[in-house]
């Protein structure tokens, strides 16, 4: 899977969900590169912004799109990585703020 191909797939997927990819394409390509790196490393597209355990069952909640994406977009307009965003966030109608980690502490590598 190439970077550009995955970008196109995820872009169409986001639109089908009523959301968007962040319009900052270089930033998004960097995130997607991280997803591809994690896929090669672990066998699944673990969130590139979080430290994975490398065991699928233990990382299940942070396989992209993570289970925290939708509540984060609802509350902040973007997911933790700022990959998936609302249209309002992309249009600048929402303040861009740092999304706090919603993943419960007990599930994180610590």
């Amino acid at each position, binding site marked *: 899977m190439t970077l550009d191909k995955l970008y196109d797939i995820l872009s169409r997927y986001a639109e089908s969900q009523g959301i968007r990819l962040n319009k900052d394409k270089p*930033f998004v390509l960097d995130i997607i590169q991280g997803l591809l790196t994690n896929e090669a490393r672990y066998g699944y597209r673990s969130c590139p912004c979080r430290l994975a355990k490398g065991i699928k069952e233990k990382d299940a909640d942070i396989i992209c799109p993570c289970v925290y994406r939708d509540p984060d977009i609802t509350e902040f307009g973007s997911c933790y990585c700022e990959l998936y965003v609302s249209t309002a966030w992309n249009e600048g109608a929402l303040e861009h703020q740092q999304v706090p980690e919603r993943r419960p502490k007990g599930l994180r590598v610590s």
Partner: protein
Amino acid sequence: MSPDKPKIKLYTLSTCSHCNRTKRFFREQGMDMEFIDVDLLSGEERERIMNEVRKLNPDCSFPTICIDEQVIVGYNESKLKKALNLP
């Protein structure tokens, strides 16, 4: 900020775009920094470094940025500039 160069240490993930943005920020400012990509570590070394991260940032999230004694979590350009006394 002390007149000496600040000591900058980053705890990062090699895959994380917020971490990459943070590294780029310091490079663009021409500032020396040390960074550790924790995802590239394993075993005892990772545990030892995560112990350091936990003491600085109990959330154990990335990037965790140390500028002298100050800890900043996540990429926040205005916080970084303030900590570095930059305009």
